[in-house]
């Protein structure tokens, strides 16, 4: 698909074309990778608990390891991103509902411990009952873990992220379900992965619908999602998701190979989505157009030169 500009280039003033906002200092790949891993881990914990309840041991094993591994790797990525990694425990110094990063730390820390314990019990066969209790706890924290990361991005002044704050949680939640289901399709035997296929397919539908809503609803501010490198990443991700969904729906339950291919494509699509959304935010912070023009339009709608309250 070709890039196209849907709105004429707006005129605006700036200070020598320089950005107004600071570009986020969050590092690539640390933070987009964490967004992906959090979604994968959170939804895998849900999948693991369902597998345990419905007696699907191979699916349970794969999902428990994905939950624990995703959380552990995600934690490492987050700590590595800090300017002062040795001070990571300062994250748990206070609890602030106004800071999604604070809230997220208090989701991620217990989730990592619980999913790790559940995986350890699964692998070693020791303390199975405690492992199940831990797994249930992880499953409860899983959906918040998969979706709070949307608040992390949206609770900023970055136009492409902030304006999409209603849709991003659904993009991330759906993308996480798609990744967890996809990984299980790739690694678990086909006779146990029917729930994983349904989860991936449903997650993909939610993600595609929410992402499409961002593009349709937000006009100029959604432009970074469809242009340049982030636009290419997002189109690639969408194609991955669509192709994987097609294979899953048509042949997911018949062919182990095709199911694995679809699963891997789902995982790739979810990962690419996070990089695309992350980079779209950076692009919208870099260009003063996305800060000035929407604010000017808002002022014009209010019919005055001075800032007035809306919402």
């Amino acid at each position: 698909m070709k890039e196209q500009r849907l709105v004429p280039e707006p005129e605006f003033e700036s200070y020598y074309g320089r950005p107004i906002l600071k570009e986020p200092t969050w590092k690539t790949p640390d933070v987009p990778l964490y967004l992906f891993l959090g979604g994968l881990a959170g939804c895998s914990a849900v999948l693991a608990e369902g597998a345990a309840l419905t007696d699907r041991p191979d699916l349970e094993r794969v999902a428990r390891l994905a939950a624990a591994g995703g959380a552990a790797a995600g934690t490492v990525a987050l700590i590595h991103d800090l300017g002062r990694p040795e001070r990571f425990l300062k994250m748990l110094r206070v609890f602030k509902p106004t800071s999604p990063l604070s809230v997220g730390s208090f989701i991620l820390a217990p989730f990592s411990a619980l999913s790790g314990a559940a995986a350890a019990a699964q692998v070693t066969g020791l303390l199975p009952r405690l492992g199940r209790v831990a797994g249930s706890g992880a499953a409860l924290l899983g959906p918040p873990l998969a979706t709070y990361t949307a608040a992390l991005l949206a609770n900023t002044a970055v136009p492409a992220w902030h304006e999409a704050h209603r849709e991003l949680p659904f993009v991330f939640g759906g993308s996480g379900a798609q990744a967890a289901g996809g990984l299980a399709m790739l690694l678990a035997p086909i006779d146990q992965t029917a729930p994983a296929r349904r989860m991936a397919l449903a997650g993909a539908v939610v993600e595609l619908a929410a992402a499409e809503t961002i593009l349709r609803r937000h006009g100029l501010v959604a432009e970074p999602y469809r242009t340049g490198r982030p636009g290419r990443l997002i189109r690639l991700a969408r194609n991955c998701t669509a192709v994987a969904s097609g294979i899953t729906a048509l042949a997911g339950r018949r062919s182990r190979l095709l199911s694995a291919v679809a699963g891997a494509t789902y995982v790739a699509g979810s990962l690419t989505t996070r990089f695309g959304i992350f980079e779209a935010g950076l692009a919208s912070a870099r260009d003063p157009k996305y800060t000035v023009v929407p604010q000017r339009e808002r002022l014009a709608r209010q019919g005055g030169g001075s800032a007035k309250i809306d919402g």
Partner: protein
Amino acid sequence: MGSLWGRLDDVQTDAGYGSPDEHPPRMGFFTDTSVCIGCKACEVACKEWNEVPDDGYLLTGMSYDNTQELGASTWRHVAFVEKPLDVPVEAPPADLGMPSMGPPDPQGAESGGEGGVRWLMSSDVCKHCTHAACLDVCPTGSLFRTEYGTVVVQPDICNGCGYCVPACPYGVIDLREGDGRAFKCTLCYDRLKEGQTPACAQACPTESIQYGELSELRERADRRLTELHDQGVDVARLYGRDPDDGVGGDGAFFLLLDEPEVYGLPPDPIVTTRDLGSLWRHVGAAAATVAGLGVASFASRRLVPRLLGTALGGRR
């Protein structure tokens, strides 16, 4: 947790400093850019007093502004706008090869200066917002509200997570390279505690930077605006003075002679936490959707489309 949005008349009480008579008055800056001469004494005084390291010696080539922007190691930044005039300019006088400076025409836009450009200078600084996004999103509590109503980073707590950086609607705070932590203007918290004037205001030779009680500064700014309008300077306007604006008013506000974006300021900033309630509600709904998908994936094949319909229908 203090209030997140809207008018707030006592920011210190909101932050837990007790009743209004238990804390000092809110202090701030009024930067009157109509008398700024672009000398950058404020930048130098700030660097010296706060021992802020250098952040590179770059020539931008865009104007006399080589400081470029506020950042972790630039807490005052003198913007230098050199803007072509809209009005057509008559042929320039013959060049005698004499050295000359640009257009020192004070009214610029109205009267067309030599060379057809006008100069605007403005010393930018952290706005010490009433509703400060940097403070609200800081997960460690490193950023805090002082008893003077200002917003300050505690370097012994900051772990360099960087959340404050994209949260600031003005692009003020940043991580310092090589150090990893976030830094910004403290409004000379140490000097305030000794009853002294912040270094930049102390050094300003034209009283463009005025320091004082915010309520008093607002009155002073209103008088100055009236004075300028009476003199026919219709382009003068106050920026960040309105306690009903998107950040609840700035603790450091400005008198500008052009649109804010010409100086690199956002025309109508709104603190991100205004939408925090909506944000968490949507996260909650999305988490419930994910949980529902999980349950439905195991329960029945027909349940999934039904749940999906509810989720998508209820999303708006």
